[in-house]
């Protein structure tokens, strides 16, 4: 069951990822990316990260892709969306990098099964508490205790990005008078 769902989600993710890069029209690429985000969310559910699956759908599929669609349709570029000249070189380099990563992963000796360390000791108390708390509560507790400072910094990043986006999309930054 677990490997079957991984097979399905993984296949669709890889296929749509290749489609995103290969399709010529940006709108089709964005739609392919939408399908990929849904399947990544499904993969997160099989990995027991339900909160992140929901966030993936809401933020990526809901907000970020709509922003992309807005810009693709707003600009409506009428140039040929062909590839660069170095397509073969790019794909060759990509395959080389993939082979290297595959070698590293195969040589690294990663765990086959999820680590549930000291199983006998923790099984009594810890596992039960984690199961009761649930995924969202666990993530929330970690976010607001251990990672409180990075959390605040990330809010600052969003603020700076908001100001920067407003400033740069304003008229006159790259307009006729700036040229």
């Amino acid at each position, binding site marked *: 069951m677990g*490997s079957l769902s991984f097979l399905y989600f993984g296949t669709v*993710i*890889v296929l749509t*990822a290749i489609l*995103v*890069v290969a399709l010529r029209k*940006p709108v089709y690429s964005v739609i392919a*990316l939408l399908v*990929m985000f849904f399947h*990544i969310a499904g*993969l997160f559910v099989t*990995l027991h*990260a339900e909160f*992140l699956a929901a*966030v*993936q759908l809401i933020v990526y599929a809901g*907000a*970020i892709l709509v*922003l*992309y669609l807005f*810009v*693709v349709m707003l*600009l409506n*570029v009428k*140039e040929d969306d062909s590839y*660069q000249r170095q*397509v073969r*070189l790019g*794909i060759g*380099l*990509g395959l080389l*990098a993939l082979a290297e*990563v*595959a070698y590293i*992963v*195969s040589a690294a000796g*990663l*765990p*086959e*099964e*999820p*680590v*549930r*360390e000291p199983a006998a000791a923790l099984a009594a108390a810890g596992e039960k508490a984690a199961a009761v708390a649930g*995924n969202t509560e666990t993530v929330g507790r*970690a976010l607001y205790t*251990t*990672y409180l400072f990075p959390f605040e910094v*990330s809010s600052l990043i*969003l603020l*700076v*990005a908001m100001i*920067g*986006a*407003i400033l*740069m999309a304003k*008229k006159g*930054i*790259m307009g006729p008078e*700036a040229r």
Partner: protein
Amino acid sequence: MVPLSYYMILSAIVFVTGVVGVLIRRNIIMILLSIELMLNATNINFVAFSYYLNNIAGQVFVFFALTVAAAEVAVGLAIIIALYRGKNTIAAEELNLMKW
């Protein structure tokens, strides 16, 4: 149960697809979409490690990666709109203003 290395290979394939997309596409919007692919590949890795090593930190970091991705998209698309307004093109090789 699927071994952890399968997830890493899946994420590597998606990441390399993103890299190839950045290399071969001419449209800047498509380059940004490829960067999005790469960010999602790292997210798959984070969540897989979080599950297999039984550590919640991976999921928290996906949260931060999401924040940075949202900021990157907002600023990147604003730059694209400003470029298009000024130069009337979003082909990557036409934009050589800072090339010497």
